[in-house]
C-alpha cells in the first residue's frame, strides 16, 4: 500500500488532464447529484460522492455506439470500433464488481471487441465509499469493498489517500505521480481499517436476506404470479431501472441514416427488458406481454439466471434502480425482504 497527500493528488490529476493522451473522467457534482463526466480540473473531482446517476458502464458500452458505417450509394459497409482510451477516477467498489461481471458477459463464447477494447484501454481508479446513498445495500451484497477489479484503489484517510495497486496498468499510472508517492506507515494502515469499520455503520437500508439465498428464493417465487402482479402494479414500463443498473447490458441494434440518406451507421443502443416491446417478434407476438412478467424477468436475471450462467449475483446493491424509479416500486431490498419473510 502507498500513500499520497491530497494536494499532491490534485497536482497528479491536473497533470494527467493536461499531459496524458487519454481522456480523464471522474465523478463530479451535477444538479445536486453526481455523475461521471470529463474532468477539466482536479477541483471538480468529488471523491466523497454517495452514488452517481449512471454507472461507469457508459464508458465501455456507450448509450449509442457505432458498430458499422455504411455507404448506400456504393453499397459498402465498414466495421468500426471507436475507442476513447480513458482514465476513470472515483469508481466505487460495487461498480467495480459490476464491471468485472460485465467483462465475463462480453468475453463469453463470442468475444465482443466493441466492449472489450474500451475496457482494455481504460484505467480504473477506484475509491472506497466515504458516503453512502439512502438506498444502497452494498454491504449486504458484499460489494461495499472489493479486493479486485481496480487498477488502483484510493481510500480517503484525511489529509491523504492510501493507494492499493491492482494491476500493472495501475502501477504505470502511479509512476506518473513520481516522488509524490510514499510508502504507507502503520498509522495509515490503522486509519484504513477504521475507515472500513465506520463504512459498515453508514448503511441505512434494512435487508433481511443473504445474497446467496436469492437464487433459491427466486426459484420458489417464480410461479407466484400474484406476488409479481402486486409488486409491479404501478410499473410504468419505462426501463429506468434497466438503464441505471450497472449490470444491465441488453441492447438494441438500429440503422441510423444521415440526412443525405446515402450514408449511415449501424448503432448499438441501450435497451431494457422492462420495455413493452422487448420480447416482441414479427407478427406482433409478444413473449413477455404482461408487465408482471417483465418485472419478474428483471429480478430473475439479477438473482438467479446470471448466477447460474456466470456464478455472480447480478445485483451489486448500488440502489440506483430504487432511487430513480418514478412510482417507487423497484427497490430490490423490499422485494427480497418480502420473499425472505414469506409474503405471497
Amino acid at each position, binding site marked *: 500500500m502507498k500513500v499520497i497527500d491530497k494536494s499532491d493528488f490534485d497536482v497528479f490529476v491536473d497533470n494527467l488532464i493536461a499531459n496524458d*493522451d*487519454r*481522456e480523464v473522467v471522474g465523478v463530479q457534482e451535477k444538479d445536486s447529484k453526481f455523475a461521471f*463526466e*470529463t474532468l477539466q480540473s482536479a477541483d471538480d473531482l468529488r471523491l466523497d460522492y454517495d452514488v452517481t446517476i449512471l454507472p461507469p458502464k457508459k464508458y465501455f458500452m456507450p448509450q449509442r455506439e457505432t*458498430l*458499422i458505417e*455504411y455507404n*448506400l450509394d456504393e*453499397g459498402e*459497409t465498414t*466495421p*468500426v*470500433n*471507436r*475507442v*476513447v*482510451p480513458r482514465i476513470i477516477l472515483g469508481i466505487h467498489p460495487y461498480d467495480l464488481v459490476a464491471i468485472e461481471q460485465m467483462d465475463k*458477459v*462480453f468475453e*463469453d*463464447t*463470442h468475444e*465482443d*471487441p*466493441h466492449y472489450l*477494447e474500451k475496457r482494455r484501454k481504460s484505467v480504473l481508479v477506484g475509491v472506497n465509499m466515504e458516503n453512502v446513498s439512502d438506498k444502497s445495500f452494498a454491504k449486504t451484497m458484499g460489494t461495499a469493498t472489493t479486493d479486485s477489479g481496480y487498477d488502483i484503489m484510493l481510500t480517503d484517510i484525511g489529509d491523504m489517500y492510501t493507494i492499493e495497486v491492482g494491476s500493472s496498468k495501475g502501477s504505470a499510472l502511479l509512476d506518473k505521480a513520481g516522488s509524490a508517492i510514499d510508502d504507507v506507515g502503520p498509522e495509515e494502515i490503522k486509519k484504513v481499517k477504521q475507515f472500513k469499520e465506520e463504512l459498515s455503520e453508514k448503511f441505512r437500508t434494512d435487508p433481511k436476506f443473504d445474497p446467496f439465498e436469492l437464487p433459491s428464493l427466486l*426459484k420458489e417465487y*417464480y*410461479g407466484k404470479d400474484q406476488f409479481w402482479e402486486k409488486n409491479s402494479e404501478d410499473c410504468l414500463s419505462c426501463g429506468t431501472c434497466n438503464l441505471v443498473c450497472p449490470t444491465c*447490458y*441488453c*441492447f*438494441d*441494434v*438500429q*440503422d441510423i*441514416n444521415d440526412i443525405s*440518406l446515402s450514408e*449511415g451507421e*449501424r448503432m*448499438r443502443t441501450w*435497451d431494457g*427488458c422492462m420495455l413493452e416491446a*422487448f*420480447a*416482441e*417478434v*414479427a*407478427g406482433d*407476438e409478444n*413473449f*413477455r406481454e404482461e408487465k408482471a*412478467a417483465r418485472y419478474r424477468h428483471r429480478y*430473475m*436475471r439479477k438473482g*438467479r*439466471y446470471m448466477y*447460474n*450462467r456466470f456464478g455472480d449475483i447480478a445485483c451489486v446493491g448500488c440502489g440506483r434502480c430504487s432511487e430513480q424509479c418514478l412510482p417507487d416500486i423497484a427497490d430490490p431490498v423490499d422485494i427480497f425482504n418480502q420473499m425472505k419473510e414469506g409474503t405471497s
Partner: protein
Amino acid sequence: MKESNLTKEENVENPGTSPYSTQKARIIGERQMTTDSKLFTLELQSGERLNHDPGQFVELSIPGVGEAPISVTSSPTRRLDSFELCVRAVGNVTNTLHEMNVGDSVGIRGPFGTGFPVEEFQGNDLLFIAGGLGIAPLRSLINYTLDRRDEYNDLNILYGCKRPCEQMFEDEVDHWARRQDIYHEATVDFCPDKVCWDGNIGVITELIPGVDIDLDNTYAIVCGPPVMYRFVLEELDEKELPHEQIYLSLERRMKCGIGKCGHCQINGAEEVLYACQDGPVFNYERVEGFEEAI
C-alpha cells in the same frame, strides 16, 4: 468537451473481427412462394460455403434498414455454393428484401444457433409437423434426411397452412407426396369455393392420429406459429410420445445472434435459455418447464 473526445478517439485496428461485421451475399435467385413470402437464393461473395446445420439461422442485414434473424431453408447437402432463405414480408428488413432483385447484395452474419441433432435422429422414424412458414426450417432437415435416406427410417411429413394458396415449396411437396418412402399429409384450415384441394381441411392436429407412431423409435420435429405448439404437443401426448423424442424450433427476436443482446431469452423458474445459442431448436423435455417457451 466533445472536441477533447474527438482528439483522443482512436479507431481500433482490424475491427473486422467484430461479431457484428457482415459478409456480402448476392441474391442469385428469387421466387414468389405465396402472396407475402419469397424464396431467395444467396451466394456469399467470398465464394465460401455457408456451412450451416439444418435448423440454424443467419442474421440478414440490409444496411440502412437493419437486421433480422432468418432460418436457413436449404439443406447443407444441396446447393454447395449457395443457400436459400424463405422470407415473409412482415417487418422493415423483410419488406425491403422483398423489393430487392437478383444481382442485389445483402449482408449475412452467421450461421448461428443450435440446429437439429441429425446424428441422434439416425436410424429412427421422423415425424415432421410444420405449420405455415414453419416449413422453412423443417425443409432444411427434410431435404437433408432425403439426401441421406438410408440413414433414417420412416419419414412422415405433416404440413398445414391456412389456405391452399399459402402452401409453399409446391414442387417439393408434390415430390414428397409421390415418393413411396415418405408418408405425407397436408391440411388447410380453410379452402375457398372453386379452389382445387385434395388434402385435408381442418387444423394440423387432425393429421396426427393418422400417423403410425412407433413410440420407441420416433422423433417428432415441430415448427409453426406460436399458437400451434400447444395443440400439437397435446396431441403428441395423446400418442404418448416421450417428450425427449420431440424437437421444437422456436421463434424469438434474436437481435445479435451471439448471446449478448438479451432479446431472445426464454425464462423459467430454474434458468434462462437463449434461443440464439441454446436454440432455436430445443428438445421438448428440456424446455417444457420454461413458462415462456411454449
